[in-house]
Structures are given as structure tokens and as C-alpha cells.
């Protein structure tokens, strides 16, 4: 029981990371600052916008609502791990996954700030729901705010990758 630095170690996108951190250091900040995972974006810092969504031990979480010390010993995956989160890897010459390609083709991103968290959460969602209904997709997307796109293209991009 301490407020001083604690030693933690975790893997982030497959790479080992160790650091001494204070208990209140947020996982979102840790990932960005200690693990170089700049694709983790802080949009609201309140767990509402979803831009900071990562996967910890297979579970999607808001990194801004988690402490770095809570991920001690865990495997964390960010947007950089999207190929394995989707399960399909990258294919084609553009270095993109199926979902990323669908987002690009459907113009489902504009400023791109909400995009990485949205892609991570969507990959996990689709892994859990092979044939989601539109209502289920909208329920999933309730956890993500986008101010630029008006959402229609995001919905279309997701629907386009369903079998």
C-alpha cells in the first residue's frame, strides 16, 4: 500500500514495457508516454468518447478509466495490434486490415482522432458478434463519439465487412 512509485511490467502490442509509476498514473498516459502507443487518443478523459479504447487481456477497456498499475502483468493491445485483433492480419499492398480498408473506402474518417479507439473496439465487437444486427452495431457505436463524420459512413464501413 503506497503512493510512491511501483514497478510494473506489461506487454504493449507484443513488446515488453517496464517502468516505475505512481499509482495515479493513468493507463492512457502510460501507453502514450512510456510505451510509445500514440494511437491511444485522449478525447474526453471521462470514459465517454471511446477514443482511448484499448484491449487488456482480451477485454476492451477505456484506457483513461484505468490506472497503469492495474495493467501490471497484462497484455495490452492498441491500434497497432489491429491485424491480430481482427484475426485477419493485413492483406493487399496497402498495409491495412479489412476494417481499415473498409473505413478508407467508405470515407468513415475525417480528422481521424476518434478512429483508432473505434477500430479497436469494433474489431473486438465483431469478434464477439459474427452477424450483428443493425441495432447491435448501433449499440456498440453508442460508446464512440465522432464529431466529424456524421456516422453514416462508419456504419456503412462496418456493415461492409460482415460476411
Amino acid at each position, binding site marked *: 500500500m503506497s503512493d510512491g512509485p511501483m514497478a510494473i511490467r506489461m506487454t504493449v502490442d507484443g513488446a515488453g514495457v517496464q517502468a516505475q509509476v505512481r499509482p495515479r498514473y493513468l493507463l492512457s498516459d502510460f501507453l502514450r508516454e512510456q510505451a510509445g502507443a*500514440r*494511437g491511444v*487518443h485522449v478525447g474526453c478523459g471521462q470514459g465517454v468518447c471511446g477514443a482511448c479504447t484499448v484491449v487488456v487481456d482480451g477485454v476492451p477497456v477505456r484506457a483513461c478509466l484505468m490506472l497503469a498499475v492495474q495493467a501490471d502483468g497484462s497484455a495490452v493491445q492498441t491500434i497497432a495490434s489491429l491485424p491480430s485483433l481482427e484475426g485477419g492480419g493485413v492483406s493487399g499492398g496497402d498495409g491495412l486490415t479489412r476494417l481499415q480498408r473498409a*473505413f478508407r473506402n467508405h470515407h468513415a474518417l475525417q480528422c481521424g482522432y476518434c478512429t483508432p479507439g473505434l477500430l479497436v473496439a469494433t474489431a473486438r465487437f465483431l469478434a464477439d458478434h459474427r452477424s450483428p444486427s443493425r441495432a447491435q452495431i448501433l449499440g456498440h457505436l453508442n460508446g464512440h463519439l465522432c464529431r466529424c463524420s456524421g*456516422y453514416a459512413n462508419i456504419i456503412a464501413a462496418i456493415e461492409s465487412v460482415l460476411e
Partner: protein
Amino acid sequence: MMAPGKFGQRLRRREDGPLLTGRGDYLADLIEPGMAAMRVIRSTQAHARITSMDFSAVANDPQCLGVLSAADLPAGIGMLPAADLVAGSAPAHQSVLAGEVVRYAGEPLAIILAADSYVAEDLAERVSVQYEPLALVMDVSAASRADAPLLYPKFGSNVVHQTSQRVGDPDLAFALAATLIDETFSFQRVSASSMETRGAIARIDPASGRYLVHSSTQIPQILRRELARITGINPDALRVIAPQVGGGFGAKEAVYPEEVLVLLALQRFGRATYWIEDRVESFSASCHGREERIRLRAAVNADGMITAVDADCLADIGAAYSFLSNTPGAAIASVRGPYRIPNFRSRARSVVTNKTPLNVYRGAGYPQATLAMERVMDLAAAALNLDRVEIRRRNLLPPELFPVDRGVSYPGCDAVVFDSGNFPALLDSTLDVVGYEGFEARRAHSPAELSLGIGLSLVVEMTGGGGAEPARLRLLPDGRLQLSSGIVPIGQGSETTLAQILAEHLGLSPEGIEIVMGDTDHSPDSPGTFASRGATMGGNAACLAADAFIRRARDLAAELRGGDPEDMVWKAGVLIDRNRPAEPLSLAALMQQAAAQGIEPAARLDATARYEDDAVSWSSACHAAVIELDRGTGVIRVLDYAVTHDCGRVANPLLVDGQIMGGVVQGLGQCLFEAIRYDPAGAPQTQGYVDYILPTAASAPRFMLRHIETPSPRNPLGMKGAGEAGCSGALAAIANAIADALGPRRPVPEGSGPFTPDLVREILHSVRGEEAAL
């Protein structure tokens, strides 16, 4: 037959690769270890005298790397700029840090630096500020009364800015009118609320030793000029870069105290300093939008012709000017929209209140003005028992009249002259795609508890302008072309669009064209990204630069061959020598030949140009919204949304459609969900997204989008802007649809949003004797 990747194509964006993989470079990504974190200490009071600010609890704390309050600012430090003032305006400029008096909750009082943002926040909490409250002014009507408490006693009034317009003889028209419509509309305060908050970093540029400021801004070039003016730093010693910006929508089109403060902190304490706005802060630290009141009176003839309109706009601009807080006046000057209305009078007053300063927000006053006019159209139709579509048809400016001088002007637009358009065609197209004709049958089939409504709006808005736009095109050593543009990428896909425009112009593939943006070293004189000017102004500038580039290429080719530049023709991406037409010269070949003769091609093939024309053009659109109103719960959903949009020649319809949809959903957010609230003591009640409700995917309607192109004769590309039209028509279309769903006997509230379930239930209950429940 369109060549691939060129103008007019739905080309996928080149900027998406890094953004999709989380490798976009936003402001926060540029923070480096060792930089100091800046925290702003902000007023908790809306209007007060500061009697003391006590730093003693932190002054000797080794974790405190520095403190600055107003007393520490350099003598003669400038005030923040306001770009849209008319002569005679009161100088209600904001200071970088509040001095003796604070005028809004959230106003910066001081800054404190620490090694990281956690500690900076800890330290800031320990600074003790004492206030002596002053009388609050929280309402624009109260603020504009003669006996109101004054935010700036030396001005003698809270009305700080005023413009007016007059066309024809409105008094006569009102005297002769068969019917008068008189309505007042209130628009609530909203926040642009891009997903990336603001931020700024000040450091020394290692390469040149100059000051380097990064800011999440839409206007890096203006920011540079203003930072130099405010701080006294020589502009040549200052470089400003806008990195990838995570949305702007106008809230990042201002010069903010924090941008000055990171630079001052660097100067004072010698450390690179960063500031990232947190979300709670953003609701009082970033400029708000929209809050105003419009009273619109219309004189209507028996045949439904609107002969005159009188518009009075009272804008609640908050505690001080922002960069562009007086644009409601500009929009009000164009409140007549696409309608003839030969007689017109307007007055727009900006009133200061104890709230966060107001700035432009997507649409810049046009959403409000359009709602006022379009609601009045529906009300006039109802008063005369005329069809809503028919009354619009009768009043629309016909296409054969273009260009149409509206007889008004305002700062930034010397004369409002609609350049081109076809309003009846917009109307026909939208009515068709939304299924207007079949709507009554659709309404009749709706279950009893769900009332459908359909609403229309037509909008004409100013785009482009802002000042001359530079561009530079040069050949890089690797053979690629590089365009330097002053446009800033805020998500609108300007990189792809500019590449398409340039590729079309040059007859080359867009892949071979690199675009650099947002860096004042590259484009020092551009005004930046706003008013939907990026593609039009940036594109025209790029083409001018391309023309200059081509001239240089012809000169070089002629020199290498010992010929006459007049003999060299640029065609489909290559130079053709009239004397040797079978041997076209590509840029790559030109480079090789130049190098072989000892000439450095990159130095020669480097052209700059400025697009100087007054390129304000007028985009237009017709919107139709179909809404469903749940009579039991009061919940409103927007089911279908149709827009026919005219932005002249469209470089990339995919991207324009994206802009329209994004704008519509922002308008939908204002209609149904969003509101910045203050309590009676002036304390902000909006602390995050639980309070401030943004639309999600479930809110998005089914979109039906169409384009009409009436090219603008004002610029060689024939383009007009498209970034804001989705927003500008949406408030009106949705409000009209809600009124339609509620039915003719229901009083529609004076306010125009948000239409909360609470409010809807109240309206449903307001007709006596009717059971609103099922």
C-alpha cells in the same frame, strides 16, 4: 472520360493511412520528455474583482517550475485580436490574463508550470484566489438594457458592436402588407467540441534558433502574426506549425490566451512548454457558438410574396471579442437567403455578457439566420393557407437573374452578390429524393404514438474569401512535385482534394504530388482554414502556382534545347516541343537533361503564386428532414435527411458528402441534444459529455445526397465551398419538421433548440383537453 484520380472523382483519401493506423501526428504527439507542463488557473467567478492571488503555498515548492500572473506579463503586451470589427466598435478585447477584473468563469488568471500535468494540477489547486463579486450579466436582453450592470464601465454600454443594413423601402412594404409575421427565435449556446481538445507547445526550433510554436489551430499564419504583435517578438523569429488537427469547426479559428502563454513561459523560464486542454476545461476555455436572438418580421402579400423582412439580431458574444465574434451580423445581412424579398432592414448587435467568448462555429451565423427565415416561410404559408413548397417557389430568386446583387455588405464582404445558383432546381431535386409527394401517405401509415413530420429549408451561404491565398509548387530532387499550401488539415481531406485539383490541372497523377500544409515557413501569408475556403482558395492558388511552374519548365526546356519557350507546350503532363513533337519531355527527363548540363533543376522549377481575386462565392442547398416524434415519451428521431447541394464544380464528391453529413449531424445535435448551461450565479454547469450530449451513430438519419453544379464565375476552377452547408440548413429543416409533426394547433416554442423530450411533452400537453398519453 475522367482520368483516374482527378477532379470530380470519389478518390479515397491519401491521408487515411497514418490516421487509420494511429500514426497521425496530433499536437499531443509532439510533446517531448523534459518539456514543462502548463496548467492554467482559471476564474471560478463569472464577474468579480480579484482582490488577491496567493501563490505562497507553491512558490517554494521545488516541483513548481514557474508561475505567471497578469502582474508578471511584459509591459505593453498586446490584447487578443478581433478581426471582424466595424468602425466605432467598443474595444472589448480580451487580455492574455485577467487583470483586476474577471468577466467569465474560466477566464485565465495565471499559469503554473511543473514537470508533468498531474503535478501541475496539484499545484494549481493550492493557489488561492480571493474574489469580490460584481453584478452578473447573464442574459442578453438584460445586458442590453440602459440600466444594466456594465462589463466595461468605460464603454457605457454592453452593446459593443453594431451593424445594420437597408435595402429598398421596408416601412412602405410593411404598411402595405396583407399579413404580418412576427417571430422571435432564441438559439442556445453550444460548443464545437471537436474530439481533440486544444493544445499548444512552445520551444526553440533546434535548426534555426527561432521560437517554434505548435498549436492545434486552423489559422497558423494569423496566429504567428498575432503572437508576434502581442509579445513583441519579431515575426521572422517565430515559426508556427499546425500539426494534424483533430477537428476545428471554427473553435480553433481564434487566437487564444494559452497560445500566447506557452510562448511567454518559454521566454520567461527558458523551458519548452506544453499545454493540453482537458475536456472539462474545454467547455469554458474554448469559444462557444450560436447564442443569439433573432426577431424576424415579414410583410406578406395576399399572393404569398414576401415583400419585406426586418431582422433584429442580438448576439450574446460572451465576455469579450474573440477572433470572429461578430459574424451573426454578417449572416443576418443575408437572412433573406434565396428569396427575392426586395425590401430589407436588419440590425445586428453584439452584447457582452459574463460568459465564455463566442466565436464562429460551423456555419457562422447562417444556421440561425436560415432557421429564422425558413420558420417564417412555413408560418406565412400557414397564415395564408398556402402550401409550404408553393410559397417558397413563388419567392425564390430565379436562375436567370444571376449574378444577383443583394444590396448589402459587411466586414469581409464588400458586396453580397450571389454569383451563381439554381434554387428551384435544388428544391425540385430535394422534394424528389425525400419523397415529398408521397409523404402524406407515409404519415398516415405511421402508428398513432409516432407522429411523422417533414421540414424543408433552403440556404445560401458565403464561402471562400478570407484574403489572398499563396501557394508554392516545386520539383523535389526525387522527381516528385511538392505543393506548399497554407490550408490546414483539420479532417476535411484538403490534402487529397488539392492533389486532385493539381493533378487535373497538370495532367499528372495525384500520387506524384506531395502536399505540405500548416507550416508558416512554407506559406507565411495564408489566412488559413475556415469559411469553407480550403478547396476553393487553396485549389485556385495551387493552379496559379502550377501555371507559374509550367512557365518555368518551358523556360528551362527551351534553354536546354537552345530554343524558344513559346515553342514549348505543356500537355497531359509533359512538355512538347512544337519543332520536335515526337519527343515529348517529361519532368523526369527535364531534370536529367538539366543535371547533365550542370543546372540544378530544383532551384529553377520552383514557383510561387498568390490567388488574389475576391473569391467569395455563394453555395446553396435545399434540405429536407423527416422526423418521428414519439408522443408518449417526447423523443424525436430524425429518420431521413435529404440535401441537394450546389457548391459549383465538385473536386471530390465523396469528401463533400462527408462534409455535408457531418454538418447535418452537428445541426441535429443542436436541435435535439446540445446546450451549454450556466447556473444563476454564472457557474458553468457543463462539465463533460454526461452534461453535454453529442449525437452518436444511433442519431444519424438515412442520408440522401445529391449535387447540382452551377460553377462559380468568380474563380477559374468554378468552385465554391462545402464545409458548412450541412450545418447551415439543418437547424431549419429539423425545426420545421418538428413543427410539422406537432401539428398546426400546437404552439411551437420561441426557442429553436434543443427540443428536449421534456419540451415536446409540454407542447403536446399545452392544447387543453387533449390527452397526450395513449
